[in-house]
Every structure is written in structure tokens, then in C-alpha cells.
């Protein structure tokens, strides 16, 4: 195992970074098709987790993590996390026959689970349990290979070609998008908007063997790498700005009150990178990654938010504008800290694993 980046991983990073630099202007205008086509078709990121025999690249969580770092650095609105990681992971486990469609990036899929779902709660019972406050689908039934139900808080749903609906006992249903009603939700994170997805007796292919909680845990562990990317952009951009911006006849970055804050942030980001690499490595090795994932998710989630908040503060008035990109990072960081379990959820999950059982 290594916590560093391999040469292959660095090459992949460079390819993704160059491509995003090229396509970012279009993506900023709301047209993410060019970025996604380039990532999926030219670089092949959509199929990283898919075995070569099924039309993918047969890579591992480590490479996925590097792509996520870059997508975090650019807050690119592409469905990589939601389709190529989360939905793909469920469909691979369930043995979906047509996975090559996703691997090529020609189609994308969304898992009908709220972005706020925790890997430590059973989302399938949550779906039928009317007591899960506010955020529950009105009803779900998965009968006769037809799906009905309403799913809120679904990321990656806008523009998806397929929906993956979790049922009980490891059943998952695959529904084509034209049989779903997708209503956009005005979302905090403008670069990863949510939607409500409704099915009314939609015909489905029902598969057996997908584990939604495991896929959520896998995705939570990799989200940490996206959070590292977000934090890194915020730190680098802020350091550069403070070297340039002058007040009181000197660069504001020469004031010790700010230097110490940035030194602390740098340390937190260094720790986040180590934790995120460790989670990716453990997920790639297939060993029990629960501790590594929980540590990375708990730490990186908080670090990304803190660095983004500090970045805004240290930019002064310009940081409050819609025009400056720092708000995109703050919104992504805050949303990411709720996605797939909050830092608190992940710390709580650690308790029995590390010998710190909760009080009676």
C-alpha cells in the first residue's frame, strides 16, 4: 500500500486537469456536455470501476479518488460521483448486464437515494418507513417488475438516462428515464443540483444482489477525495490572493494573524489528503475499510467546509460576490459534509470499531 500517488495516477490527474482547464468555460455557462464527453470518452473515467471484460478500464478506487480530487478542484458539474461511482457500484454488484452503456459514458445513471442518506442507516427500510421525517418517498412499491414511488434529494438525476431504485432484501430495479418524472429542486450546491424522482408503475428490470449501504460507504470514502480537491483549491487560491492583495502598504499575507490561520489550514489539508488516500487505498484493496472510510469522511468533510469558509472570509468583499467562484466551493463543501453521512455520523460509527463504546 502507499499513501502517495503512483505514476499512472499522476498521469490520469494531468489528463483530467488539462481537460477541465479546456472545458471549464463552457461548464461555467451551464453546458457540461463537453466536459463530460471529454472525461468519459477521451479519458475513459466513466468506466474506471468497470472490469475490462464489461467494457470498462478495470481500475480501482485509487484512480477514482484522483479523478474526484480534480473534479473537486474544479467543482465540475458532471455526474461522475453519482453515476460512475455510486450507481455503477450498485449495478456491478447486482450484475447488471448492460453496464457497458455506463462504462462508456454514453448513458448515466442515478441511484434513487437521497444525497443526505447515511451509509449507517438502512435506506431501503427508510424508503418504506413513513417515520423518516420529511425526506421520505411517499410510497415505494416494487411489484411485478414495476416501480412506483417518489424519491427526494436525488443527485445526478437531471439528465440521467437510467434510474436505479433500491428495494428490500438487496433487490434493485433499473428504470429508463423516460418512465420517470424528474423535478429539479432549488439546491444549495448549484454545481450538484438535486431532484425529486417519481415513478408510477414504471416497467423495470429487477436485479438481485446490489448492496446500497455498501455502495454508500464506498462512495462516502471516495467523496473524501473530492473534499480534498475542494479544500486544496480554496487554500491555494487564498494564499495566492493574500500574496497579491495589499492593505496598510503591505501584502495582507504578511500579517501574522493571517499567516497562522493559513498554516493551520495547510496542516488540515495535509491530514485530509493522508486520510483520503488511506480510504481510497483500503477500498481498492478490498479489505475491511470501515475505519479508514469513517476517519476520512469525518475529517475531510469538516476540513473542506472550514477551508472554504476561511477562503471566503480572507477574500473580503469580493468573496461575497456571485462573480467570484469561492461561493461555488463553499456550497459544494457544505453539501458534501451532509452527503453520505455527516462527519458526526461517521465518528459515531467508529465508536464500536475502535474500542470507545458509547455511554449506557
Amino acid at each position, binding site marked *: 500500500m502507499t499513501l502517495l500517488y503512483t505514476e499512472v495516477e499522476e498521469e490520469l490527474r494531468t489528463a483530467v486537469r488539462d481537460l477541465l482547464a479546456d472545458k471549464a468555460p463552457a461548464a461555467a455557462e451551464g453546458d457540461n456536455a463537453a466536459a463530460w464527453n471529454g472525461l468519459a470518452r477521451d479519458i475513459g473515467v466513466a468506466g474506471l470501476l468497470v472490469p475490462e471484460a464489461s467494457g470498462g478500464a478495470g481500475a480501482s478506487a485509487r484512480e477514482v479518488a484522483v479523478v474526484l480530487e480534480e473534479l473537486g478542484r474544479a467543482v465540475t458539474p458532471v455526474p461522475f460521483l453519482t453515476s460512475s461511482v455510486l450507481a455503477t457500484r450498485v449495478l456491478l454488484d447486482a450484475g447488471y448486464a448492460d453496464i457497458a452503456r455506463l462504462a462508456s459514458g454514453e448513458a448515466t445513471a442515478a441511484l434513487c437515494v437521497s444525497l443526505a442518506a447515511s451509509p449507517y442507516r438502512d435506506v431501503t427500510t427508510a424508503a418504506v418507513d413513513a417515520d423518516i421525517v420529511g425526506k421520505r418517498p411517499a410510497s415505494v412499491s416494487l411489484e411485478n417488475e414495476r416501480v412506483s414511488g417518489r424519491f427526494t434529494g436525488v443527485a445526478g438525476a437531471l439528465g440521467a438516462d437510467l434510474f436505479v431504485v433500491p428495494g428490500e432484501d438487496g433487490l434493485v430495479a433499473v428504470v429508463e428515464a423516460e418512465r420517470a418524472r424528474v423535478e429539479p429542486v432549488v439546491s444549495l450546491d448549484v454545481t450538484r443540483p438535486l431532484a425529486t424522482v417519481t415513478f408510477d408503475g414504471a416497467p423495470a428490470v429487477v436485479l438481485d444482489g446490489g448492496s446500497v449501504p455498501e455502495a454508500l460507504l464506498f462512495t462516502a470514502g471516495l467523496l473524501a477525495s473530492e473534499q480534498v480537491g475542494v479544500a486544496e483549491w480554496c487554500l491555494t487560491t487564498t494564499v495566492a490572493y493574500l500574496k497579491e492583495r495589499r492593505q496598510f502598504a503591505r501584502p495582507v499575507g504578511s500579517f501574522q494573524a493571517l499567516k497562522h490561520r493559513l498554516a493551520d489550514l495547510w496542516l488540515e489539508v495535509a491530514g485530509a489528503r493522508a486520510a483520503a488516500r*488511506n480510504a481510497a487505498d483500503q477500498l481498492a484493496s478490498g479489505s475491511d475499510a470501515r475505519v479508514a472510510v469513517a476517519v476520512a469522511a469525518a475529517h475531510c468533510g469538516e476540513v473542506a467546509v472550514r477551508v472554504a469558509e476561511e477562503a471566503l472570509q480572507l477574500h473580503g468583499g469580493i468573496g461575497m460576490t456571485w462573480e467570484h467562484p469561492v461561493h461555488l466551493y463553499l456550497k459544494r463543501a457544505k453539501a458534501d459534509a451532509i452527503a453520505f453521512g455527516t462527519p458526526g455520523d461517521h465518528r459515531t460509527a467508529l465508536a464500536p470499531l475502535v474500542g470507545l463504546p458509547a455511554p449506557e
Partner: protein
Amino acid sequence: MVDATTVRQRAEAFLAGHDPASMSPLDWLRARFDAGLAWVHFPEGLGGLDAPRDLQGLVEQLFRGTPDNNPSRIGIGLGMAAPTILAYGTDEQKKRFLRPLWTGEEVWCQLFSEPGAGSDLASLATRAVRDGDDWVVDGQKVWTSSAHLARWGILVARHDPDLPKHRGLTYFVCDMEDPGVEVRPLRQITGEAEFNEVFLTGVRLGDDLRLGEVGDGWRVAQTTLMNERVAIGSAGSPRRTMMGLFTEDWQAHPELRTHDLHRRALDLWVQGEVMRLTGQRLREQLLAGHPGPEGSGMKLLFARHHQEVSALEVEFLREDGLTYDDWTFRRADGVDFLGRGAGYRYLRAKGNSIEGGTSEILRNIVAERVLGLPAEPRTDVAVPWKDLPR
């Protein structure tokens, strides 16, 4: 390049020929040094094999259970004096000092800080005046850990007060047996005295005890301080940690657990694990030949983590937290974090953010050297030392 196989063969051959049971520990350690198995990354003839640094772990593993040189007692020698001697010493100095330093026969101390010069080390006032082939040293050092045990000290002194402060410094090895050296214990908040004040009065040091050129003291001292940080940053993960001790307490006392403490304990557990992984990543970078800047940050992490875990432990223990194991004023052999009680840990950990560069100074270093932020305007750099305001 010496590889793992060679190192393993050497170590196994050495063990076959040197049964620790039939030799005195010191003879065994000397023989180990002479076999190049002390610190394998050091040069041949100086206790090493010119091997990559990471192979040391293999040696330690193979030598588990053999006599050890009590590394915590000779930490300053191993972590600071040795790399500085290796970088700047003459061949004679390397031959003379490194072997007894490593075997623990000769303890080293660090004579840097003074009453008037702590964070601003370059402002120090101890004078070294050339007298024929010798130097005569006068001044006072303070907070000198292990001076009472030390045979030698690494010493920075001012040879020329007319030069600006960084330029008038020269680096020496101080003979602690010189009659002009007086060591007085300073009692610490833990009750004992790990550190001392050291009075230097007409101490005569031969020019062969100078390390580096006259006037090069600041540069040589930077090597010492950098190695101190690397040593702290790249130390392997200890088998037992403060968090591990806390966890044992937690398991032993279900009746003391509260939800508030639980939340904070989990927070610190994550913090400790992130610190461990950061250190592991740093070591990997060092081994790959890209020493990362994380080294300067590791000490900041250690200091904060130790302080927060020990503080939580004292609070968790409630009535036991109100007791202390021993206030006796004695001269300590070193730091005993894991052997002593929670109160000692809490108090001793306070020093972690002061010794070896305060956390404020380390943040300055990270901000300026790692992030490249501009230095604050200074008025003390170009002026002759003797004209600086005090």
C-alpha cells in the same frame, strides 16, 4: 546500493556471531555499531552501510529483544547532534563522537536557548573568543534538557558582536567536563527537573571542537533544528499512544462515560489517526526521496494532540484526575509519557508546544517556507548585533 537482502544477511550473520546473553550490553552495542547495523543509512565505518533509510526498520525488527541504547535518554544525540556532526564534522570528529553517541555511552545536550534568546535564537549573547588554538566561552544557557547527564553539548556562541546577528555565530561541541561548566537543575511544573540552567565561565574549547566554519553557526544550527523536526515528524508510530491509554481508561470505567466526553473522545481518536497517516505519508515521501514539507507541521500536530488527549483523560478520570502520582523534586532521565499518571501527561505535554520551536514559530515557518507568504517587515537583520535594542 545495499538492499534489503544484504541488510537481512548482515543482521542475521551478526546475530549468529554475537549472542547478547554472552556479552555485556555495551560490548554488544559497540559490535553492532562496528558491523554497520546501528543506523544503516549512515556511511560505512560510522555505524552504517550507506543503505536507504527505510531499511532501518528491518534491522530493528530483526533485533527485537536485544540490548537497546535507550533512545529516549539519548534523543538529542541521535536526533540532533549526530546528523549535524555527519553533515559538518571533520573525519576525526565523526570517528570520535558518533560511536559512543549511538551506544549511549555519551549523552548529549543542546546548549542553544538563553535567558535573552529563545525563539529569536540568533540574538544569543554567549561569547566565544579566540585564544591561540582554543576558544574561551562565557555566557549562560537555559532550559538545557539532560545537561546533568551529558558528556557533550552542541553549542552556538557569538564570535563577533560587530556583525549582524545571524552572521556572527559559530557552532561548537562543548566539553561538559570542563571546570568552567556549571549545571543547575530547574524544577518543572511536573515536580522534577528534566532541564537545567548552564553557566559557562571561561570554558576552554580546542579549535578541533568547532563544527563548521567560523561564522557558519547559524547555518549549522539550521541543520540541527531541521533534523529535530524531521526526527519528530518521521518517528515511526509508537506501539502505545496517549490515545491508546485513554481508550484503556475508557474501557475500564464505564461508570465515568458521558455523551459529551464520548463525542470529544471520538473527535480526538480521528485526530490521532489523521496524525498517524500524515506521518506515514511524510515517511513515504522521505523514502521516495521527496522530503515533503509536512515535517515542519508534524510537530504542531503532535503538540496539539498530546495536549488535548491528556486534558480529556484528566477530566474523564474525575476524582482520580484530582490526584497526582509524584511531586518529588528529582533529576529526570527523560520524558516518561506512558509510564506516569494522567496528571503528569497533561502537565508535561504543555512543553510540546514550546520545546524545539514554539507552535507560533512553527506556524511562521509553515506560512513562509511552505506557503511562501511574505515575511513580516524586520528591523533586526542588517544591524550589528551589539547595536540591537535589548
